[in-house]
Structures are given as C-alpha cells and as structure tokens.
C-alpha cells in the first residue's frame, strides 16, 4: 500500500468507519476497552526490548515535542515520562508550576494555549485538581493530553504499568485476586487500578480503615460502577481475612497529612491492623506479588523486609513504567494529529 506517498485520508476514514479508534488522549482507563489495553501491553513489551538494548534510542518520535507540565511534586512519574520520550527521540521539555508564569497568576487554560501555540505535540500533565487534564483535552485542538495524575481522580499510566507488571509476572489477570490496602479514598492510583484490574477480569478486594474507603465505590446505588465493575470489587476491613489466597497485594502510601485529619485513631493502630508484613503475606498465595505505587513510607504501610523481599516487584513497576509510557506516547502521537 502506498502509504509513503501521500497522506492517505480515505484509508484512515475507512479504518475509522470499520470501528478503529484513534486515541488522542489518555485521561483515565474508563474509556479503554480490554482490547486496547492488550494493544498497549503488546507495544510496551516491544518498548521494553528497546530499553534492554546497548543503544537505548529509536527514532520513532523524532521531531515531536513533549512537555511535562507538573503542578505537583513528582520524581518517578516525571523522570519516567522524560526517559520514555527521550528514548523515542522526542524532544522533552520539563515545566513545573514553581518558577513558571503560574506564579504570576496565569491560568491553566492560558498556559495550555501558550504551549499549544508553540507547536508542542503532547502535554503530560499532573495537577492537584481532579479533571484538569480534561479541561486541556477539551479546549486544545492540536495537542495530545496524557494524564499523569489529577487530584484524587485518576492516574491511568500508573494503572497500565501495574497491569503490565502483574501480567508479566503471573501471565494474566483473569481470575486473579488483587488486594489493595490502605488509603483508597485519597488514592488516584487505586481508582485507576480498580478500573483497570477489574476490566482485565481480576477480582479486586479493598482493605483498610472504613474512613479511608471511597463511599461511591462501595455503594450499591452507584449504578454505573455496579453495572461495569461493581461485581468484581469487594471491601473487607480485616486485612488478615482479605489477604487470604491473594495473588497480588498492593500497599498504598498513607499520606502523612491524613494522619492528623481525623481519618485514623492513631498511626500505631494503622500499623498494627493494616501494615503488609511477613506474617500477613504468608496467608496469601505462595509467590504472591507485593506492589506499591511509591513513594513508600517503609515501616508504616509496608514493612522493610516486605518492601525489599523476594515477593516485591516494586522496582519492576518502575522499570515497566518507562516501557508503558513509551507505548502510550507512541500510540497518541501516531496518525494524523488533527482528525477531529
């Protein structure tokens, strides 16, 4: 086929008519089908091969510009995206709110429009307000948006790297029992993970203090969640019971600022009831994976020996994160940029 000659728009229109989706933005996992998640996983596997080479560089995104726009502190996510972009030969520009025009009062939208006017192809955004990436996706015409964490809402790239890690280690997620422990209420990672894991056919059990559980996820009255993933998500505040037969145990960071906000009786009690320890892990399936989205508070939500023990795949998660983000950057940048 003569794709190299001209921009073959009839072919692309045909592909669209045949139901091929063209993904422009990655905002959350709720609009990803299981097939599309599989596609991302396959691409990520190829990207991991690239990361294993002596020369870690491919020209795929040569001439593309990626801006990481971070309104919140981050090390792993920002560096992970920066490495992903650079390995694909994109030019990556890092921008953080401090030191930028944001300090002079520029709005998010105007910052976005400014970046768009500079001809940037993709914005990777982290923002403390839920929904901020959606605003940019809606208002900007030519820029792809990737959500790197928005408020309490979503962190889709983390969820995809978690899916990749489980699939890589256990061969798949179908029928696996995944226990997510801790502060689910304030965790955008947990929210995206729940969508992703359940979509891939895993059974998700949430455990932790009832005060740190999101009521919307647990209420039978929430029909959208009940009809899509509700049957696959359970809650059990007793971790010793919840962890029984688990294939994956994921500890969430107990954010220090929550400890004084009345969500917990005391830190000591939290540690006693919900820390992931050797003793508790022995109730899970042999070879169960221990995961943590980072950064960890060792000795609080997870014991030192578990964090660095044989079951821990926490460093795998970080490595896989680069491959998954490469796959996503590649996917959103492929194809005509001004389709809709």
């Amino acid at each position, binding site marked *: 086929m*003569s794709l*190299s000659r*001209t921009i073959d728009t009839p072919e692309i229109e045909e592909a669209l008519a045949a139901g091929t989706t063209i993904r422009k933005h990655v905002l959350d996992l709720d609009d990803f089908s299981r097939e599309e998640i599989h596609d991302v996983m396959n691409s990520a596997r190829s990207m991991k*091969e690239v990361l294993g080479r002596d020369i870690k*560089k491919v020209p795929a995104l040569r001439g593309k510009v990626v801006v990481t726009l971070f309104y919140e502190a981050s090390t792993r996510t920002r560096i992970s995206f920066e490495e992903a972009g650079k390995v694909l030969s994109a030019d990556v520009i890092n921008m953080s709110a401090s030191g930028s025009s944001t300090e002079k009062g520029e709005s998010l939208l105007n910052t976005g429009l400014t970046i768009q006017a500079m001809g940037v192809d993709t914005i990777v955004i982290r923002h403390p307000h839920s929904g901020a990436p959606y605003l940019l996706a809606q208002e900007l015409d030519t820029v792809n948006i990737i959500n790197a964490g928005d408020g309490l809402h979503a962190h889709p790239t983390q969820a995809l790297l978690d899916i990749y890690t489980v699939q890589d280690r256990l061969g798949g997620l179908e029928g696996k029992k995944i226990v997510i422990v801790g502060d689910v209420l304030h965790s955008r990672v947990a929210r995206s993970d729940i969508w992703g894991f359940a979509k891939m056919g895993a059974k998700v059990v949430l455990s932790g203090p009832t005060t740190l559980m999101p009521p919307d996820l647990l209420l039978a009255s929430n029909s959208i969640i009940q009809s899509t993933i509700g049957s696959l998500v359970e809650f059990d505040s007793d971790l010793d019971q919840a962890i029984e037969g688990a294939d994956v145990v994921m500890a969430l960071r107990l954010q220090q600022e929550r400890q004084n906000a009345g969500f917990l009786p005391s830190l000591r009690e939290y540690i006693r009831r919900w820390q992931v320890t050797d003793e508790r892990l022995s109730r899970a399936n042999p070879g169960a994976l221990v995961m943590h989205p980072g950064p960890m508070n060792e000795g609080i939500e997870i014991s030192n020996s578990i964090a660095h023990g044989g079951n821990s795949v926490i460093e795998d998660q970080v490595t896989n994160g680069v491959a998954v983000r490469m796959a996503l950057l*590649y*996917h959103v940048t492929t194809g005509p940029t001004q389709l809709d």
Partner: protein
Amino acid sequence: MQERQIMNQEDVRRALTRVAHEILEHNRGAEDLVIVGIHTGGVHLARRIAASLREFEGIDVPVATLDVSLYRDDLGVRTQAQTKLQQTDIPSGIQGKSVVLVDDVLYTGRTIRAAMDALVDFGRPQQIQLAILLDRGHRELPIRADYVGQNLPTAIGERVKVRLLETDGRDEVALMLEGIHAEEETDVAE
C-alpha cells in the same frame, strides 16, 4: 474482489529453495550468517530459508526477527491499527556477521531503509544482504535485492497480496485487480 494468482504453493517453494542455494553460493557456505526476518511475512520466510540451509549444509543459522515500525518515516500518516508493534529479537547479535534481511515484497524500499537503520543499532554487521520473495518494482530509494524469488512488473495503484502457510493456510502470491474497491489490505506488503 477479483485477483490473479502470480505464484502458487509450488512456485513459492521452488523460489525459496533457489534463494537458499544462492545464499549459500554467494557466501560460500553458511558460516557467520544471520537471517533476519522483517515482521510479519518476512519472519516466516526467514525461518523457512534457515530450515533449507540446515537441510542443505547441516548448519543451524541463527534466525532473528525485526519490527521496523519505530524506524518508519510515515508514522504521521499511518493509523494506530497499522502501527501495532511486534517483537524484535536478535539473540545472536549481528556484530561482524553477514546479515541476510528477508521480506515478502520489495516495493518502495522504505521498509528496507528502516530495517537497515534498525539493524545498525544492534552492532556493525560485516555486510547486509537482501532476500525478497517478490520484487514488484517502483523503488523510491536506491535499494535492490540480492536474492529475488520472482520479479513482477506492477502498476503503482495495484495491490499485491502474499498469503503464507503459517498465517493463511496456504502459500500464494496474488495481484488484486484494479477497479474493485479494496477491503482487506492490512497485511498487504509495504
């Protein structure tokens, strides 16, 4: 859609056998050879050529696979479905080796350009040769094949379909006849 058969199962078998013999003749044996198949069709053909070399010379020639998507120059005009990545696997390395690239159809030459760019990221081969099942002409780059199964003059708008035992249940090369709307074209070469 109407189509005209260019090669049948026997034609494909004979062409590949001859190509395998030519590779041995040209390289004076199969030492220091690596056969690299370009996804998807080229990978199957590479394995068959390696099997023939084993049969003729009793030497196991390493077979590698290459996905050139990340090296293409037409990323901006391809759809996401067309850019699904496949595994690149070069277990033996290519440093100092004679590499035989294998693909099903040679057309514009852009795939081969991308493949050569990809290969040199894995080392400095002593030389790179090219084996092709069908050369349909219309090169856009100064590239030619060292081993050709069959030459077929085509018009630019025509489409060539290669069916292989491994994916389609039979070996066949067919020319899609013009004037009829093309539907199935995802695995048409180039």
